[in-house]
């Protein structure tokens, strides 16, 4: 109840006044420190009154690449001139608008693809009105203009042309109806198994395995939770799926609920995704009216309510055990594992937590068959998936691609090739988590099996690698749902420091290696940028980064800490000249620096 109550108080007051928190403590009979623990841990909650105008600039990856720091400097200068203390300018962690970089937020409203000049005039308008809510915000690139927070007139049918939607936009729930018509547990699991559907959130757990684990887990009460906390920089595919195909996500949840015997489903969505929250709530209303969820769902005689859980925010909520902690009114801090959520999840009950997209694929796979999905893949890959791509590409966005598509084709064909024909210097293949890889990867960085397979080549050409989780893992690499592409003139040290700052800001602070390690990495990077090291200092920097990378990977509780040193670690490894640039105090473009770049064919 704490989270819902805090949401409610903030809605009324715009922040969380001390008196209200004290009253809440009495009302819920919960100690003050418990309330403060929660209130101070999530970025959504404010403990101080908000300024008249709150202007936030997204500071991560694509937005950083496109000059976000310069926006902040310029706007801050302007605010101190005009604002009279009534305006707050600041950076904000990835807003999931990487295809519209630089993205800014004024009050609750997003604006995409804004230049500094446009932002300055937005700020001027906001200051003139003393409130940001009066001017309409931008809509999403692919979103219909009818979507604005709080009001929606979403039509019941809108085709996306995506293969994930077997109903071409109609809300039919045919897969769920078919499931109920016969006892189709085995058939559904079989379809997921043949289709080799994997979790799309990053870990890539086979869906049939996870669903069957929760089905078989002992326990009267079980839960289904959709992880829609999409907060990883560079990743915004769930934004589109939640907005355009909420019915598929819901049907996936219903199928999972039927299969596992769960009593309730939750769709956990980050609070900044307001249109998505509205779309999902409306889809749930319609689905209840259609009788596919809620009371006596699909005529099974069992109730299966589904509700939206608005996340109070923070990248760490994407870590599934931290997400469950947040839902249980605690700080979003990952749990020590084992146990896993499949057996000991929400309220210690068996819980299926999966990514939005994993649920969204399930209806089509069950409806059209596992073979159909499997055969969508190419180059040995199985199935299809949604990838977000941003950075120095001509057409950043979300693409439904066959699994196994070579990386070069995603950049060159789907994303329209490199922006302004630049050469490719680096790719971040999993938001900031995998660090930054050069297009020509030295073989000695690969696992032995892969080295032997490629021994005739001097380098591994990243562009040839199929976008397939298993192929990446075989090469010792990580593949996420968000890829960010960097052109030849990018300063990789600057990008790495930025990515490390993200991890530092988003670390929950629970375990020492991550909390302290990320902060030290940021300082190392900043010291390097500020010229604190001379040429002899680079070897110690490499040692420090190496030691931290290993300790954080070995000893952190969750995935955030384990990958927190990858941005600097990979830059130290692959982009040494960008480091020495700060020692020489002159930055050389990659071609001069001897860093290999490639041209991406369109």
């Amino acid at each position, binding site marked *: 109840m704490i989270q819902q109550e805090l949401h409610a108080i903030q809605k009324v007051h715009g922040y969380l006044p001390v008196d209200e928190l004290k009253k809440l403590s009495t009302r819920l009979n919960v100690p003050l420190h418990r309330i403060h623990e929660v209130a101070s841990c999530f970025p959504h909650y404010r403990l101080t009154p908000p300024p008249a105008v709150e202007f936030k600039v997204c500071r991560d990856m694509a937005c950083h690449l496109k000059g976000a720091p310069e926006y902040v400097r310029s706007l801050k200068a302007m605010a101190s001139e005009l604002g009279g203390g009534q305006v707050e300018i600041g950076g904000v962690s990835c807003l999931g608008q990487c295809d519209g970089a630089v993205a800014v937020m004024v009050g609750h409203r997003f604006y995409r693809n804004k230049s500094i000049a446009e932002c300055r005039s937005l700020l001027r308008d906001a200051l003139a009105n003393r409130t940001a809510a009066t001017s309409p915000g931008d809509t999403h690139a692919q979103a219909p203009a009818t979507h604005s927070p709080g009001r929606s007139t979403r039509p019941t049918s809108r085709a996306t042309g995506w293969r994930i939607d077997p109903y071409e936009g109609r809300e039919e729930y045919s897969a769920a109806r078919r499931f109920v018509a016969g006892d189709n547990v085995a058939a559904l699991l079989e379809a997921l198994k043949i289709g080799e559907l994997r979790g799309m959130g990053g870990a890539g757990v086979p869906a049939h395995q996870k669903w069957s684990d929760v089905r078989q887990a002992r326990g009267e009460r079980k839960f289904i939770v959709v992880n829609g906390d999409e907060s990883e920089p560079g990743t915004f595919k769930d934004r589109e799926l939640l907005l355009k195909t909420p019915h598929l996500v819901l049907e996936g949840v219903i199928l999972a609920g039927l299969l596992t015997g769960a009593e309730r489903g939750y769709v956990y969505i980050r609070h900044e995704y307001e249109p998505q929250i509205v779309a999902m709530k409306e889809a749930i209303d319609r689905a209840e009216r259609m009788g596919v969820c809620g009371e006596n769902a699909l005529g099974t005689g069992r109730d299966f309510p589904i509700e939206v859980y608005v996340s109070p925010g923070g990248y760490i909520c994407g870590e599934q055990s931290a997400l469950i902690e947040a839902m249980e009114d605690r700080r979003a801090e990952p749990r*020590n594992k084992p146990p896993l959520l499949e057996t000991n999840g929400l309220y210690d009950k068996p819980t299926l937590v999966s990514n939005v997209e994993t649920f969204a694929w399930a209806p089509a796979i069950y409806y059209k068959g596992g073979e159909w999905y499997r055969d969508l893949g190419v180059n040995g890959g199985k199935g299809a998936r949604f990838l977000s791509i941003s950075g120095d590409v001509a057409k950043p966005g979300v693409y439904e691609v066959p699994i196994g598509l070579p990386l070069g084709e995603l950049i060159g064909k789907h994303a329209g090739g490199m922006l302004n024909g630049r050469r490719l210097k680096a790719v971040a293949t999993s938001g900031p988590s995998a660090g930054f890889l050069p297009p020509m990867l030295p073989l000695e960085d690969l696992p032995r099996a892969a080295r032997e397979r490629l021994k005739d080549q001097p380098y591994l050409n990243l562009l040839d690698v199929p976008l397939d989780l298993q192929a990446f893992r075989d090469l010792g690499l990580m593949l996420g749902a968000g890829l960010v592409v960097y052109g030849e003139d990018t300063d990789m040290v600057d990008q790495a420091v930025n990515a490390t700052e993200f991890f530092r800001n988003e670390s929950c602070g629970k375990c020492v290696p991550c909390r302290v390690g990320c902060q030290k990495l940021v300082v190392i990077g900043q010291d390097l940028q500020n010229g604190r090291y001379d040429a002899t200092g680079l070897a110690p920097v490499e040692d420090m980064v190496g030691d931290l990378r290993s300790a954080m990977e070995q000893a952190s509780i969750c995935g955030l800490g384990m990958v927190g040193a990858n941005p600097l670690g990979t830059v130290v490894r692959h982009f040494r000249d960008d480091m020495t640039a700060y020692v020489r105090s002159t930055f050389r473009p990659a071609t001069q620096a001897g860093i290999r770049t490639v041209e991406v064919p369109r």
Partner: protein
Amino acid sequence: MSIGLSPELASREEDEGLFSRDLDGQLVRMDKVTAEDLKRDVTIKIDGRSVTVKKAVPATDSQGGYLKDENNKIIPRATTIYDAACALFATGTLRLTKEMIEQGITENPIPILCHQSHMDPVAVCRMCVVEISKVKRGKMQAERKLLPACQHRVEETMEIATMATSEKVRKTVGTITELLMADHPSPCVKQTQTGDCELEALARQFNVPAPRFSRREPKPKDDSSLVIAVDHDACILCDRCVRACNDIRDNQVIGRAGKGFTSKIAFDLDDPMGNSSCVACGECMISCPTGALTNKAVVASKPWEGLSPPAERIHAEELIRHPIPEIRRSFRGATPAFLRWNEGSIVRRRFRKGEIMCREGEFGSTAFLIETGNVDIYLNSAMEHATSSGKGGILGLFKKFTVDHVLRKDTRGDASNEGRHITIDAPVTLDFARPTARLGPGDIFGEMTCMNSYPRSATVRASEDTVVLEFMRNVLYIMQRNKTFRASLEKKYRERAIANHLRSVPIFAPIRENPAQFEQFVNTLRDTVRLTRADPGDVIFNQGDRADDGFYLVRTGFVKVSQRRPGGDHVLNYVGPGGYFGEVALMGDVPEIQAIAPAGLRTATCSALDHVDLVQITVADFRDLLAQFPQIREPMVREAVRRLQEDLKSRERTEGVPLGEFLSQGLMNANSLLVLDLNKCTRCDECTKACSDTHGGVTRLIREGLRFDKFLVASSCRSCLDPYCLVGCPTGAIGRKGSVEILIDPNTCIGCGRCAENCPYGNINMHPFETNERVPDPERPGRSMAVYKQKATACDLCHHVGGDPSCVYACPHDAAHRMTGRELIDLVERRNS
């Protein structure tokens, strides 16, 4: 990546770890461990050495007492890798002796920082990480990550590599220590004050060089508390203070606030500690491994003034490095920070030969530990009896020695005095005929008076020039937290006291007639009895429970025996030191008992009235005893039948008195109730006025309160037998000063309100008092005003004016009286009959 696995399973392993699935590939639910697991063996290897431990151990509270569930069953907790390492190696803080090294004992190679044995593990500092391998699908396979030993359960076939054998662990732990040290203000306040910063000690132990990482922006200090200094810069967010405050003390003040590298501990809504609801109990401070929470040492406690021989101040350092190993060990449970914080609570006193150290019947609140010399411990009244050939009688003795002799006399049965023994508050029992015992260096006495604020149970005299350490309840409480200390008390009991204790139980009288047989009897029990402890209110067993726990003898404290009857619980009896209970249900095979009691089921609920020490004899041992010593069987049965019949009688007796109500209002615990006879009282309020006049205009009684029959028990201190208010006073300002009344020293009271909060009857009030401190008056520039401070006040029975309490004296209608709870119930009983 593991070899020989299907890619699917291999990728699965990334996420779930080695121990997630059973042999059939099913995910294993992490269930709570069960009572069966307490008996199940698990063998693991740590650095190549095998160790067998139980799969679960009983969960304990901070004092080592077993936690029980609502059905009064022991709650098991899973045995961790760290537990297993502790079983295999000497504990980290223990200095190894030559013999231990010869026996192959080495220091525990797993360091801990955020973990403490009396807290639930949180595994946040990651100092205790180890490499774990386990046999899976017939092969030994390693976990991909290092995992925390403090939290990870033991599993069959597990092999652990600690920093003693794994370079990976050594390197990782080294880096983590270096990270923490980089931000640590070394030497921190704790290191400077007491030299025991745990982080700095680990850094030295691992030879961590000067950190390569630059230090973060220093975090602020919080100086707002009068007694505890907060330095956020030294805080490593180990969560120990949080658990100390919320789990150990249930004060619910400290939490973690903020997120990531800006997170910190916070009080309430991130208020300064001094403005928060903190009661300055000090638990967080003694739990803190670094200088984040330290003692400000500004409170000068003077409870020792005017003593003869005088109390000498003793420094914490001296206790830690005490030349007598036994004394050094006794203080191991108390951290140097704690000892320093409580320096005022421990003193040294030098008694000359023949001087009395404490007197039977006196109220006190301290315990003693002998440094050098010997003491005689004896009972005055019993001495009289011994020297005047049995005159004086047993009642005379127990009148002083027990608290409610009337109710419990039947526990004594009708055994003759001959050969009887008396349990006292020391690791010996006294022979009734020669009620003297001798204690020497390293021995502790007065524990029960200290914990329960009971009158002293015996007199202690220095038999030669003797030096003792005398200390207060807060010190003893922390000392008892240490396993070694508890174990050494137990050992002494088994060695010295058990024989006399068993001898003192009337029911065992027939055995002691034959000394050889009695010795055999004692030896049978010496090592198999379990010494258990219960806190006030703890249920030992419930009426209707299966009697599988055994038979109990009471060493110290009082056990309430009650039965559920229509109209509420009825107390049948109080069993005090020397008494026993729990035998009826174990004798279900005896026809006479079968006829009147359900076989194998408890016929009454037994619960602790105060801090109780019990000797538990298992069911099997009890049955063996009856079989082995047939001469005790018959009296045992007779006594049990008598007790059961007594129950029936008492049922009739108590029906006239609302005993349940009496108990629920806590009146049983009262030494001095202010009782107003409502038939006489005219509500003239003279009593309140008199109180106010006597106490500088602030009344300490309120003429309102609980109604009991035709009597009003006014809100005024009851001088309880077991005063809850004394628990947790951070400065020792509240206490019994050799008398029945509870006194609060206004000079040392810091106004924390802890006692007022603890008093269940609302009889302690907080009042502002003018202090000598002056501050500028904001309303009258240039002038100063006095600072007012909250102090606790309670009825002192007009201690300072002598004679009758003014309230009683002032009553013009003879309506106000002071009496004990027992007297009140007798009054009501008389009235109703």
